[in-house]
């Protein structure tokens, strides 16, 4: 019988039924970070329990570590943050998990590192106490975000009890124009079907536009699945996946992954198809990822939004008027970073716009590579010079300004354009107004000092 990729992954990891709609699922690998993983490790140790397979658990420091140059030790701008960094180091040491500390060139944002270092591979299950773990589904692996108690459970039992999600295929058809990328696809999807459009579903992305994306773009697309309320997201194995994992795995595994695709004719519980051939760069105007528009559109009236009150509140917070154009809105801050858009391909895409240009006076531009490995690679390619010459700060790797944790932020009321994944109120600092966009849109906007269409730079 034809099975979807999700069904194959589920069947391969089903340890036992758990009653109702739930099963016990075997967890192949885990990734932990200092903000939540430290707490889970501490709970395991405090209760006198053991990590079942420490050599299949990886940890690093990304969430609250300082990303300014010259960092080290426990330096963080987050009040009380040192405690988390110390607890992560200690927990890793006492449990014997793999740990990439700040001086390790493999350090970086968990989901970037897990892909880059070949930790997540096709056919696996991997969990991490971070909601964007779905990123790794682009490899044809079942990966999802969990809480601290679940992390403790998975560390001790190497299983999780999981309610079986429905399957949903999302097809993006059409050829993407120049300057349009995976982030635009994701924002378009969430705008079209709503921030809870994928509720209860394991997504599988397909269609010609997805086939056309490189692995980096596929990670971006899967990353944003949680902003669509999906359980996780998947993309079936193909040549691009094969090329990506080839140098990251023991050679004995070459050619063993090709079955991690949906069978022809496999049935999905739900499906959606979006024609993206004429898609323009997307930018969010509100405080939820579904509140987005194409760059050449106007900010909508709350009356045209599903929830009038919420839309009105969002417009007020964002300092926008219904009917005004999003393009041309003056910005103060530009952030290129996060597990969504800080892989080497994202940095190259932004650099394509920034090369030989300067960002507008008064705009603070910050670039934070997704991993220390990516940072080095970018430096070998000379991308750091392009960013620095353009007036961007060139940082050490970490989550940085994707979220505010009491340390670094932009001033209240500042308008930020950001490659990150959440435009929630206060996400980048109290009163900070965040517009989500892809890396080329952020770079173009930094140069103009206003929200700008990257296609004008790519002619």
């Amino acid at each position: 019988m034809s099975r979807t990729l999700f069904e194959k992954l589920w069947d391969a990891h089903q340890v036992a039924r758990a009653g109702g709609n739930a099963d016990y699922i075997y967890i192949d690998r885990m990734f932990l970070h200092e903000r939540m993983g430290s707490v889970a490790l501490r709970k395991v140790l405090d209760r006198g329990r053991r990590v079942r397979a420490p050599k299949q658990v990886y940890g690093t420091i990304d969430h609250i570590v300082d990303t300014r140059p010259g960092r080290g030790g426990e330096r963080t701008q987050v009040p009380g943050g040192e405690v988390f960094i110390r607890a992560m180091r200690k927990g890793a040491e006492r449990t014997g998990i793999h740990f990439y500390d700040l001086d390790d060139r493999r350090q970086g944002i968990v989901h970037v590192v897990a892909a880059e270092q070949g930790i997540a591979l096709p056919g696996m299950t991997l969990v991490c106490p971070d909601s964007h773990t779905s990123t790794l589904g682009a490899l044809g692996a079942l990966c999802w975000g969990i809480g601290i108690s679940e992390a403790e459970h998975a560390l001790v039992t190497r299983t999780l009890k999981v309610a079986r999600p429905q399957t949903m295929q999302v097809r993006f058809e059409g050829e993407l124009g120049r300057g349009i990328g995976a982030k635009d696809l994701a924002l378009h999807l969430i705008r079209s079907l709503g921030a809870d459009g994928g509720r209860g579903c394991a997504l599988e992305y397909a269609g010609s536009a997805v086939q056309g994306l490189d692995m980096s773009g596929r990670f971006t697309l899967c990353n944003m699945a949680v902003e669509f309320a999906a359980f996780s997201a998947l993309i079936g194995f193909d040549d691009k996946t094969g090329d990506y994992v080839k140098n990251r795995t023991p050679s004995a595994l070459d050619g063993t992954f090709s079955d991690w695709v949906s069978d022809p004719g496999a049935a999905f519980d739900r499906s959606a198809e979006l024609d993206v051939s004429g898609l323009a760069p997307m930018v969010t105007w509100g405080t939820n990822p579904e509140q987005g528009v194409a760059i050449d559109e106007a900010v909508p009236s709350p009356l045209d939004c599903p929830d009038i009150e919420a839309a009105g509140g969002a417009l007020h917070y964002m300092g926008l008027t219904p009917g005004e154009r999003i393009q041309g809105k003056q910005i103060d801050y530009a952030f290129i970073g996060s597990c969504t858009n800080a892989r080497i391909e994202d940095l190259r895409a932004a650099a394509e716009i920034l090369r030989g240009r300067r960002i507008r006076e008064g705009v603070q531009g910050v670039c934070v590579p997704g991993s220390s490995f990516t940072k080095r690679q970018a430096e070998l390619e000379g991308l750091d010079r392009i960013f620095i010459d353009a007036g961007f700060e060139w940082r050490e790797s970490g989550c940085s300004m994707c979220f505010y944790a009491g340390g670094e932020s932009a001033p209240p009321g500042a308008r930020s354009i950001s490659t990150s994944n959440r435009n929630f109120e206060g996400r980048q600092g109290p009163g900070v107004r965040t517009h989500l966009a892809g890396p080329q849109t952020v770079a173009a906007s930094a140069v103009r000092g206003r929200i700008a269409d990257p296609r004008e730079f790519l002619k």
Partner: protein
Amino acid sequence: MTPFEPLTGIAVPMPQPNIDTDAIIPSRAIRGIGREGLAEGLFANWRYLPGGLELNPGFVLNRPEYAGAQILLGGANFGCGSSREQAVWALQEFGFRAVIAPGFGDIFRRNCINNGLLPVVMPAEAVTAMARWVEEKPQWHKLRINLQAGSILPSEGCPAWLGETLHKTRIELDDDEREMLLRGIDPIDLTLRRLGDDLDEFEKRHLGKYWYLRNS
């Protein structure tokens, strides 16, 4: 985990959709690795006036009629966003025992179950109806939650239309979730007891095939 006892409590409506875990507890309010000391940071961006800890009188939780609230009536997609379990810990430390909403962020909902905060999914119309009634006299119009019976009912004096709406609803949980909440069972103990040798047998087969996943 503390067992979930029947509860008659004040309910506070927060009907806005997509209230995310950053809003429930901003990252800056998470200052220690324990689960204590988080209540102060609950809804910090809304609960306090900018720049300090002075209460914002306009925020619903600060209104005297909702003092002592134990039940939160949320909007669609409540608890979406970040996986931070501290959102649940903060709600509990503040005094909440149950959240009723048309839908929850997946991870938030699972975090609720694992900590004994009861998450109840109800149709939007039922939640709105409860909110409307509660708002009339929050300190008197309480909700009675009986997990054993699977029911949520208004305290006495409710209009017939609301009684009818609520009599039709049931608290939807799977059997394990219900048991865990009712008895305060530790989920790890439950899993280990239940899986027993099955886990070892599965693991042997699985790691035989996927040798690179062995613990070595």
